[in-house]
């Protein structure tokens, strides 16, 4: 182990208070004389904080109930774990046959006593199932009040919807609702998605434009903005200007030439970087003509989000005053440092001319790129008729699968490391 590694290891242990007094004194002396060590310690401290700040799981009552059931079943019947039972094969066959016979007997008895079985589910239950398989947003669009999380879990709650709070409530249509009064709800949609809705954000009539949805799909982040006409032009123009400043790559939508030209005119002289010389971008872009698509390294996303929050709040003076300073993208040390612009990822074509003074640092070759889609849709006119809007944040959830098989026994399987780790 090099001296530098040894010092770094001691810094890590110093962070945890795991050094002896003598070692602690040595590290403190090192920190006093070595700026690099101080910087290293600070980076290790921040790394540890990031890990410690990871969200923790919330265990549901359902989990506790399932665990309790499993423990009781385990206590009553013994383990069903093959690695634990380990009995002779004949015993397992007998057990399986007995189970099959019992199930068969139950089926025959039920069939004899209840000829109409299996019964058709009640109409309301069928409707409920259909409703569950229908995307939540479609149901909202059709005027249905979205179900509460409880109602998705329990059919009995379906009749109680009229008693629920207004789903997208909070918006009063007269601009009195402050933006900060957002209410988030999450529900487990039948499609395996977790859908979160925010209400109140876009309900303010003072907001001529508003972010109405943020969606995340793999490396793509989609921001849906309610804006049209001059608002859309202004937002697009400012985003394009910011893209030039922060080294985000702007790509054109897949449009016929005339419509693309119109979009360019609409985007306040936004610069366009062609993806391919022949202009064929099928499969790359969605067909929406008003999308603004950017690519940026992932670390730029907080800057984008902050800027978008600032740009989309135009007439809400109080919100602007509160947010303007806070939403300023953090300045990095290399602000105003001329860097060489990099081409749009995957684009063989040349980039357009760009200003040489950029506010963002040059992306490293290994950095992850993400695509940001800003999608515009017509804004609702303010006034008493403009009701609150539901804000949807969607993320995909993997499908449930059966629990893993029984694992190893209670002994730790980690091995003792050898070499310099052992002391």
């Amino acid at each position: 182990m090099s001296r530098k590694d040894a010092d770094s290891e001691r810094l890590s242990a110093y962070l945890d208070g795991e050094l002896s007094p003598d070692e602690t004194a040595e590290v403190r002396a090192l920190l006093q004389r070595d700026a690099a060590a101080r910087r290293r310690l600070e980076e290790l401290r921040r790394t540890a904080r990031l890990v410690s700040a990871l969200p923790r799981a919330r265990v549901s009552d359902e989990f506790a109930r399932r665990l309790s059931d499993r423990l009781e079943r385990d206590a009553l019947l013994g383990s069903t774990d093959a690695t634990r039972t380990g009995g002779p094969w004949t015993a397992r066959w007998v057990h399986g046959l007995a189970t099959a016979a019992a199930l068969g007997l139950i089926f025959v008895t039920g069939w004899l006593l209840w000829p109409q079985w299996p019964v058709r589910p009640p109409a309301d239950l069928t409707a409920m199932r259909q409703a569950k398989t229908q995307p939540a947003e479609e149901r909202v669009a059709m005027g249905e009040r979205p179900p509460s999380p409880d109602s998705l879990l329990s059919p009995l709650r379906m009749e109680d919807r009229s008693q629920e709070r207004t789903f997208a409530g909070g918006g009063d249509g007269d601009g009195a609702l402050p933006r900060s009064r957002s209410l988030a709800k999450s529900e487990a949609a039948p499609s395996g998605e977790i859908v979160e809705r925010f209400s109140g954000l876009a309900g303010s009539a003072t907001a001529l434009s508003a972010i109405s949805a943020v969606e995340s799909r793999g490396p793509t982040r989609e921001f849906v903005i309610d804006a049209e006409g001059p608002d859309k032009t202004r937002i697009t123009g400012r985003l394009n200007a910011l893209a030039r400043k922060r080294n985000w790559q702007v790509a054109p939508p897949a449009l016929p030439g005339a419509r693309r030209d119109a979009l360019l005119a609409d985007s306040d002289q936004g610069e366009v970087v062609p993806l391919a010389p022949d202009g064929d971008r099928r499969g790359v872009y969605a067909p929406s003509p008003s999308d603004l698509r950017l690519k940026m390294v992932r670390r730029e996303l907080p800057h984008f989000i902050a800027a978008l929050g600032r740009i989309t709040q135009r007439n809400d003076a109080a919100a602007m005053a509160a947010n303007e300073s806070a939403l300023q993208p953090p300045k990095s040390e290399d602000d105003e440092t001329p860097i060489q612009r990099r081409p749009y990822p995957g684009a063989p074509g040349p980039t357009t001319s760009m200003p040489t003074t950029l506010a963002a640092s040059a992306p490293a070759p290994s950095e992850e790129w993400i695509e940001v889609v800003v999608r515009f849709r017509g804004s609702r006119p303010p006034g008493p008729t403009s009701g609150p809007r539901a804000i949807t944040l969607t993320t995909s959830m993997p499908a449930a699968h059966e629990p893993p098989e029984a694992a190893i026994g209670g002994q730790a399987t980690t091995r003792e490391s050898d070499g310099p780790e052992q002391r």
Partner: protein
Amino acid sequence: MEGRHTQPVIASATPIDAGDAPDQRAPRGGPQAFGELIADAQERIVTLCWRMCGNRHDAEDLAQEAFVKAFRAMETFDGRAAFSTWLYRIAVNVCLSARRRPRLRSASVGDDLSDLGAAGRAARHPGAPEPLQRAADREMHQRVVDALDTLDDEHRAVILLRDMEGLDYRRIAQVLGVRVGTVKSRLHRARSALREKLLPTLGTMENT
């Protein structure tokens, strides 16, 4: 090296039980008594499994498996370590074993948004619209999760036990069945690797 002589520089989470002294009394009783015994440990074990395997749904299955194993093996609990340390050890073993099984989902996508919390606070901008705050949180959180996913299992385990669960080196050594010096070395390597991955994020924290 075995003893701790200075106060930790960073705050740590409170362990499952306040004391880490060996528990000489082997917990006894049926499922109900066992359930009460582990009530406070459930969230910690599920969280550890979540961060070890990278998937929230798998985490509940794995945690349940760990609790069942602990219940079955209760008679073998000899009290040489704290009960919570013993639980952590079983949970880590279950996770390490599960990660070797190919059918376990290893992708770290699909985190339940309702669980998102303090991660990425540095990227939060006071007064920003709620969806944006949550998006910024999620980005920061996902970066850390992605970086953790690049570590191998033994380094991921040691950094989670220390920085998320707040265990000291001696208890981590008991959980992992290694020496304290090994814990120190692994933790340093894990943090250094994570630091390399998160350097841009650390810069953002500094600026904000």
